[in-house]
């Protein structure tokens, strides 16, 4: 099958400069093998990565015909459109040359932050059941497609991203590890688990079905069980979430005024900070000076909080252990 690879070799993603390479390959050949054949026989300076060719090393991730793929797991016949396969870098990843991503910056520095090995806790014998989450997370090949789909990385390349947070999950759920709380505190700092906006794109993008967004949500639960809440390391955020929880659990709905005051440091400090905004809001009729009452049924909402706290008492004990 005659294929034209339009290979991006310069320009930007929006304004790419392509070089065309023609090659005759069987339609069942993988896109990665076909690209290697082009590089080996036509142009040794074509820069892209890849090694194992059987979907385990996660190194050959590229954008092909606009879709982001592990290129050794798709074939030429199904990928080509009218004999053409356009090859570009994946979104968001900085590029070193051609479609050679700067994976250190895009992925590795972040993954390595959470990759520090198990520190044995010398604890109880571990069951198969307990290790299943670890086994699932370790199926990850670090292909980077979850980060490529991430809507937070889209606006903030410093967000650790689902791939690195999958590594955090792998340790947070390993019953043999002795520094779980320390890891969760690290993961709860800025750009960590609490910066995920749960858009579920990571779960959509993972070619191996590992559901990275779910793993981040589970890691958050783990963090909460260890007494680590969103905004860890950021006093203002911590106050914000505490105030939010307090408002809902006491009054059954959001008392925006008190949340704002508490977030910014209480009545005096918060009052001074929010005063100009408050005055503008009052003038436009967006705020009122009337007291904020408990909503009807607030007691039933309170019970939901009580039930949650009882259910998680076990996990909270784990934190103390």
């Amino acid at each position, binding site marked *: 099958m005659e294929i034209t690879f339009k290979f991006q070799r310069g320009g930007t993603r929006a304004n790419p400069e392509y070089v065309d390479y023609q090659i005759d390959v069987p339609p*069942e050949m*993988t896109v990665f093998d076909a690209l*290697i054949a082009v*590089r*080996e*026989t*036509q*142009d*040794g*300076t*074509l*820069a892209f*990565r*890849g*090694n*194992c*060719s*059987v*979907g*385990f*090393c*996660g*190194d050959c991730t590229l954008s092909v015909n606009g879709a982001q793929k592990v290129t050794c*797991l*798709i074939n030429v016949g199904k990928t080509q459109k009218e004999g053409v396969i356009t090859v570009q870098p994946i979104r968001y990843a900085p590029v*070193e*040359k*051609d479609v*050679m991503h700067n*994976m*250190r910056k895009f992925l*590795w520095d972040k993954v*390595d932050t959470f*990759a*520090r*090995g*198990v*520190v*044995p806790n010398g604890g109880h*014998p*571990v*069951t*198969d059941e307990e*290790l299943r989450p*670890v*086994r699932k997370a*370790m*199926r990850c*090949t*670090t292909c980077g497609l979850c980060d490529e789909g991430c809507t937070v990385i889209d606006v903030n390349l410093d967000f650790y991203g689902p791939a690195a947070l999958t590594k955090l999950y792998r*340790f947070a759920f*390993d019953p*043999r*590890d002795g520094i779980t709380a320390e890891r969760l505190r690290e993961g709860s700092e800025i750009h960590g688990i609490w910066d995920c906006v749960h858009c579920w794109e990571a779960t959509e993008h993972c070619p*191996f*079905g590992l559901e990275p967004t779910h793993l981040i949500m589970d890691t958050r639960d783990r963090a909460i069980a260890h007494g680590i809440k969103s905004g860890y390391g950021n006093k203002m955020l911590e106050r914000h979430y505490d105030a939010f929880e307090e408002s809902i659990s006491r009054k059954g709905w959001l008392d925006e005024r008190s949340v704002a005051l508490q977030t910014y440091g209480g009545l005096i400090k918060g009052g001074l900070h929010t005063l100009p905004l408050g005055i503008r809001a009052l003038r436009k009729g967006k705020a009122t000076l009337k007291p904020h009452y408990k909503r009807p049924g607030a007691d039933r909402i309170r019970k939901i909080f009580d039930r949650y706290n009882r259910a998680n008492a076990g996990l909270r004990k784990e934190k103390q252990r």
Partner: protein
Amino acid sequence: MHDVLVIGGGIAGLRAAVAARSTGAAVALLSQSHPTRSYSVTVQDGINAPDGTEGRDSHVSDTMAAGAGLNVPMVVNSICRDAPVLVEELDRMGVPFNRVGSVIDRVGAPGSSQPRSAYVNDITGLTVTQTLFEQAIGTGVQFFEEWIALSLIMDRDECVGAVALQLATGAVEAFEARAVVLATGGPRRAFEPSTASLHCNGGGLAMAYRAGAPLIDMEFVQYTPMVLSGSRLALSPLLLGAGAVLEDGNVRLNGALDDAQLESRFPDTLLRVEALSGVDIRKDPAPVHSGMARLLGGIDVTTQGETSVLGLYAAGECAGTGFHGAQALDGNFLLVSIASGKNAGLTAGAHTRRVDESKVGEQAAEAARTALDAALGRPGGAPVAALRSDLASLMHEKVGQSRDANGLKEAIQRIQAMREEHAQLGAGSNTRDFNFGLVQYLEVGSLLDVAETIAASALERTESRGVHRRTDHPDLDTSQGGRLQVTKGRDGPHVSTENA
């Protein structure tokens, strides 16, 4: 100056780095890709590590039976004795081994008289590599990724480091070290079909051979019958252990595993077979063929991983440990990588040889720069790729599963001719950064050297033993019970029987 320089980021190299670090040595690890991108991650075998004396005895006897008299008994005994401890260590480090209750499960593999393979579903290689990498990160191993080792730095007869090329920049630097551990894997790319990753080019074997270290057992090249058609994926032998059967070039499940069991035990097999061949193994048999899977020989090493060159150690597939003998048992492959990696790392780390700062490193780097500059100016690309592909077909046809004197002689002659052709070729472009044409040229050079030692050893062994099958000498000859060593002579490989 590094205390220990490990070359190769797969399981053996990472295990060596972690072990060397545990001795307090400052360890640098140089690898062609990020370590978790190594060939090791594709290996789906288990790790043979039976518990208890009875289990150990049968592990030793099965290994010796497969090895057909060429195993080194001391090495087999030592590694089989250590095996359960090695697995327990990996478990403590974080490998999520499958368990029955809280006991690490052991399953059967083809050729094993008892179930003895510890495993992690169908991702043992992936999880062991990740875990060792995590340990290396945690213990402060210094990583040099996407560097390609070119040659060893020799000070008279001693190894004092290696010269390497940085892929991103084309820079050539000397990495001086008190000890060098080679863990660069096997030369799969010299054979087609095979299970080769792109980086399986036998670079470490070639470097050691050129530096004067003897290679051993090079005639033993093992094929697997389980390569998925149209791919380089070797299906897990644990599928057979779980009741699947291999017949008429197909792997059939035969109802041995229901869908739920398959999805929980072999999720990555299911996914990859479907992606690579379009077959849903829950419904249809997976077509397979045989392909070169591993080299059983390598750089001649002691149990502790020492080569005959002072300061140079080797581990994993590039090391000829003598454990496998003439044929390897499924499940012993990862075991040897882990055991030899640990041993070589510990020995290298404890190696307190004093190495003075000298000019030899910079001289070696300068020589390499000159050679590469020349290669950058010569034509390359397609003719180099053709050499590699011709070599791989030649090796499969004449030096593969069935061999004879005429074919082997022809292979040696053609390899020599190819080497002359190779010497006229080069990178095909004078680009410095990310010059894959240059990398290909260097790799084919390594493959040619290693291929020649394989063919020369196979010619010398005039009998059939283990995976070495000579159609002109179909029987085992008890008088050839010695191991064959290959050293680099002035006019090519020199093969001799090792002094027992």
